[in-house]
């Protein structure tokens, strides 16, 4: 009665969705491969553009991957599957753990694809840096996983895709996934409060100090600590015994 089958099928379902394939893998990879050749020798803000944009697109794809369980939750709710699962012995923690794990596994695939593309276009990092960058991206995803689960349990199946799409694109844009919008000034101070900023800047962090500054860790931690209880409340509200 372990949860391995549940996790396996959860992952399979995610991989079978065109949404995952296109938004988490296809779009960031294609954007990277189309935009980088023309800007191969550009150095933006102290780091090579091909590295900057690699983490930018990896972050963008990972954001989609991590928020994506929410779409599945909303569809399963609409079909009565969430309710049907409540009359099986499946435990809540297994159900949630499977969603989180799937989000991370999909995101790891996104990172692997983008890192491979980056390496092909000449991004050179040592093993420790690749490893650190992966670690930072995975940590930085946590608030998005939580927000995905929360939205999945709060919004209707019709309202969810535009809400999720708008949120991801806005956060990716402000965080600098498509290029730094605010090099300095008050807007930079503001966007640094977004978890997406730190996700996008994981690449810059590893070529610099090897990690985010304290500020980055605090922003990611605060968002995670605020959004995780929200996801828990949304889940309980949605599945409460009436």
């Amino acid at each position, binding site marked *: *009665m372990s949860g391995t089958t549940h996790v396996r099928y959860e992952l399979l*379902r995610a991989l079978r969705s065109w949404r995952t394939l296109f938004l988490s893998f296809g779009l960031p990879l294609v954007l990277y491969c189309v935009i980088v050749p023309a800007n191969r020798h550009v150095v933006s803000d102290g780091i090579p553009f091909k590295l900057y944009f690699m983490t930018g697109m990896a972050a963008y794809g990972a954001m989609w991957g991590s928020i994506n369980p929410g779409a599945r939750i909303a569809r399963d709710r609409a079909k009565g599957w969430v309710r049907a699962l409540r*009359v*099986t012995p499946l435990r809540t923690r297994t159900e949630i753990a499977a969603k989180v794990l799937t989000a991370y596994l999909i995101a790891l695939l996104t990172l692997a694809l983008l890192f491979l593309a980056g390496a092909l276009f000449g991004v050179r990092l040592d093993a420790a840096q690749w490893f650190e960058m992966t670690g930072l991206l995975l940590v930085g995803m946590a608030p998005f996983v939580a927000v995905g689960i929360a939205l999945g349990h709060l919004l209707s199946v019709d309202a969810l895709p535009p809400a999720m799409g708008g949120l991801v694109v806005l956060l990716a844009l402000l965080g600098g996934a498509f290029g730094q919008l605010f090099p300095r000034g008050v807007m930079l101070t503001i966007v640094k409060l977004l978890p997406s900023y730190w996700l996008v800047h994981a690449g810059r962090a590893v070529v610099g100090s090897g990690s985010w500054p304290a500020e980055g860790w605090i922003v990611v931690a605060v968002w995670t600590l605020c959004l995780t209880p929200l996801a828990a409340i949304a889940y309980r509200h949605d599945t409460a015994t009436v």
Partner: protein
Amino acid sequence: MGIELSKVAKSYGSVQAVRGIDLGVAPGETVALLGPNGAGKTTTIDMIFGLARPDSGTVSVFGASPTEAVRSGWIGGTLQDGSPPDQLKVRELVTLMASYYPHPLGVDDVLRQTGTADLAGRWASKLSGGQAQRVRFAAALVGDPDLLVLDEPTSGIDVEGRIEFWQAMRAVAERGKTILFATHYLEEADANADRIVLMARGRIVADGPATEIKAKVGSRSIRATLLGVDLAELQALPGVLSAERHGEAITLSCSDTDAALSALLISFPGTRDTEVRGASLEEAFLELTHEDDHDDRDAIEPSSSSKEGAR
């Protein structure tokens, strides 16, 4: 006891869905929860599954709370509204359900038993209504729970599918499983349950074998060919509730057909083609579920006593 509900009541806002019911289902029994829409069947089932909490009264399943019974895998079944999830094939869905239970059945066996083997490779979310119902039944069965609770398991299934479904269901019952199913089809309840629990407006209005429910209504009728008799005279015979005439044929609705029949034959020797009919289950159903429109009246007792009084 398999299932035990004691003085259970449940309201949603101002709607009293279930108004204090007592229901016991013994292990191994197959019980039909029969009633029209809005009778409180689904609310009752939700409380047995632990999806709804009774406002008052208690629900236990194999001596435990519904939540414990669900967690232990003792109880399984299907809810009324629910369709299979996206991006899973039928065999995968059944395998997934099997993985949740401590001692599941073989996936292939269950697919065969439920007539879903030919659907195994299809997308579970892209089936016809009847096919989806069969897949839901397979998914409920594969965990091999001791108690199966099915909310309207045959709605949307065609005739052939229904026959197959009940065959599979009887095989499950023969293995000693306890089954509770909700339906608004009388024939299904009659043909497939050991006992029928008839619900109307949140109450249990009758509980027993189909024959007992028919008897409960009390109205059996006598038909005969009889000329030139005043209806009022017929109505005055002992055991007769009402009399009707269609051409030469008369129909007497009776509370006591034996008394009525002997009185009829003695009083009117010209009676021919005499025939005694029991009430159909359908008549019993309509009578028991529709006559009591006053919420605070008990459904069964006033029905028989008011009839006795009318004669």
